[in-house]
């Protein structure tokens, strides 16, 4: 049998691998033929760099891999390599991301399409390997695109799409692919790596003004008096972020067509058609939430689940359309924001802000899982139960619940 006739059979039976999230993302970096990688260890994202270093040592692909002295240097290396015209990969977790905060910020404001893995982890102190979203959510304001994967397969796919969207001339912004620490970074699950149909999905990266003497000399990020071009420069980033929405839709359409896996660009929903109550969340725990939704549906409860696939650009319009007919929302929230409006999490308050413009506003309750202690399906069921009661009474007893807390929830 010739290779030509063998191919359709392979398509029908994709080769499944059992990979952790970090292993799967490393595969995407290899497929993207990344040129410069900057590594520095911190759990739980480190595995991706271990894997890439092994691939390069074994000659599976070729890239400059720099072992940096800190996360700040890591992100500076990626930023400057990107300015020359190299495709780059970097990443971190927890306090490591905050150590790099300055370099992360300037990467977006200099409009360099670096792709980074954020392996979400609780911030110190005390040191804690648990999962929280705050390490990544703090970068919501600076012009990074942020997508949130629910499993290893989606993490791989999102990484490839991230390069395509970031490097698009209409966007040129850096991109975090966020994955929940441990549950995605460290847990192995079946993954189907893309086959040859992916070829051509990712065109070569060509910056418009490379920092290379081969081209006209550019002076990039020169200091300016605030009155000169400060406002216009910020507007450029704003417009790029606005334009990214269309580019994201385009990229996922093309990707889905090529690999035969269907992805809605911004929101993934389950059981939402006639739902009265909705669970809203992101990331790995979506699967548990869908299980809870299914279980409650079997009991006749009209419960649906909505998952955000992007945190930036924030899918406000899609959320309004999806949620303005429900009566109550249980937010499964792995973030905190001490002293915020109603003392809710950062994820919760962002959703409330988006739904302020909805034509009718559901009750929105925050179920906040801070500090890394793992919730289970009982917690999620209880969250729906509390939301249901609040809807029946017509008013919430309170807005924010710490369900995994031991002791009194003051």
């Amino acid at each position, binding site marked *: 049998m010739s290779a030509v006739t063998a191919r359709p059979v392979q398509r029908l039976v994709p080769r499944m691998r059992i990979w952790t999230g970090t292993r799967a993302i490393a595969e995407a970096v290899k497929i993207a033929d990344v040129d*410069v990688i900057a590594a520095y260890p911190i759990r739980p994202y480190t595995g991706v760099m271990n894997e890439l270093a092994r691939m390069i040592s074994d000659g599976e692909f070729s890239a400059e891999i*720099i072992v940096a002295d800190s996360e700040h240097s890591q992100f500076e*290396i990626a930023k*400057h390599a990107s300015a*020359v015209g*190299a495709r780059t990969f970097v990443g971190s977790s927890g306090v490591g991301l905050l150590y790099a905060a*300055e370099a992360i910020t300037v990467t977006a404001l200099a409009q360099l399409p670096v792709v980074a893995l954020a392996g979400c982890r609780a911030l110190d102190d005390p040191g804690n390997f648990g999962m929280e979203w705050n390490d990544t959510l703090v970068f919501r304001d600076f012009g990074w695109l942020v997508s949130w994967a629910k499993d290893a397969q989606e993490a791989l796919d999102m990484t490839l799409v991230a390069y395509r969207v970031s490097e698009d001339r209409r966007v040129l912004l850096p991109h975090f692919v966020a994955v929940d620490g441990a549950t995605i970074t460290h847990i192995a699950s079946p993954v189907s790596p893309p086959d040859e149909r992916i070829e051509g999905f990712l065109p070569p990266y060509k910056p418009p003004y490379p920092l*290379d003497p081969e081209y006209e000399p*550019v002076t990039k990020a020169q200091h300016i*008096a605030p009155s000169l071009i400060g406002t216009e420069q910020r507007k450029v980033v704003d417009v790029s972020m606005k334009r990214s929405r269309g580019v994201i839709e385009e990229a996922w359409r093309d990707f889905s067509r090529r690999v035969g896996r269907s992805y809605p660009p911004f929101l993934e929903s389950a059981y939402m058609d006639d739902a009265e109550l909705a669970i809203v969340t992101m990331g790995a725990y979506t699967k548990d939430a869908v299980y809870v939704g299914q279980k409650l549906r079997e009991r006749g409860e009209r419960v649906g689940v909505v998952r955000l696939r992007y945190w930036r650009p924030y899918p406000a319009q899609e959320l309004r359309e999806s949620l303005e007919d429900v009566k109550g929302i249980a937010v499964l929230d792995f973030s905190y924001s001490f002293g915020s409006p109603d003392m809710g999490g950062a994820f919760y308050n962002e959703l409330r802000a988006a739904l302020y413009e909805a034509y009718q506003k559901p009750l929105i309750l925050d179920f906040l899982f801070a500090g890394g202690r793992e919730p289970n399906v009982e917690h999620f069921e209880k969250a729906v139960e509390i939301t249901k009661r609040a809807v029946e009474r017509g008013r919430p007893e309170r807005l924010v619940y710490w369900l995994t807390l031991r002791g009194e929830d003051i």
Partner: protein
Amino acid sequence: MSLQPIRTPKELGSIDYYTSGHRTCAGCGPAIGYRLATKAAGPKTVLLGPTGCMYVANGHQFLTSPYAVPWFHTQLGGGGAAGIGTAAAFRALISKGKRKREEINVLVYGGDGGFADIGYAGLSMALTYDYQRLLYILYDNESYANTGIQASSTTPWGATTTFTPTGKVKRIGNERMKKNVALTIAAHPGVRYVATSALYPPMDLVNKVRKALNSGGPAFIQILTPCPKGWFFDPKHTITLSRLAVETGAWALWEYEEGTFSLTYKPPKRQGLREYMRMQGRFTHLSDEDIERLDRVIEEQWKLWLESDRQRRIILPWTPPPTPL
């Protein structure tokens, strides 16, 4: 393509890569250093500028640029990483056939705040790699001058700065000894070329830059660059002070090439520090005895510099601070 040594300024040619379009102070030492270093490196160069005087004063007021080769800002602590990222990008793109094969100089021009303090770890990391034509130049004006003269770890003993003012109780001003950054860089086994330089003798800096770029590995040069604003002197004396720093022995010129040390200037008969220090307003509060004590420290250090030169090996010139009892 090897860069040949230069004997006279004429040989350097008339093309500048750091030219008009900046707004540095009259008599700015770092700006003179920038001009010479970029002339020495030539057109196939990428410049990277950590935050500092040579960032803010080279831009800001008008939408102009003094750079005739590609230039990109990096954060105050990002100099080391920026150089590595840029050099790694060129190596990756060239070795993978994505860019034509060519030797590109990467020159990071950072201040003492950027390289001796906040970016010291990043600089150290960078110099453990093997990228060729990657040169870090520390323009040492001995303070954070852009923010209004605050002490750094290369500010000399006795200097008054806004963070180390002379006062009724603390008379001396800065009581820390100047950190010899270049000597610590020489401790990185991968570095092919380490040197100190000044704006005098005239072609010293130019030739050291060319040697550094030819050296076949990452390299580092620390230039003492007088700063009229931070050292408080008449702008017409920038070069005079460079000369006096070298002739009085306050600043030793040396190079360290693949493990071999040599002094590149030996003061014929070392003058006392008095003339050098009395020209600078930052030392006016020091008494003659203070200057004599500092003189003795420099004298001790010079015995070790000369011994290093004789042995062609580095001996760390340790001396106690001249703080009065």
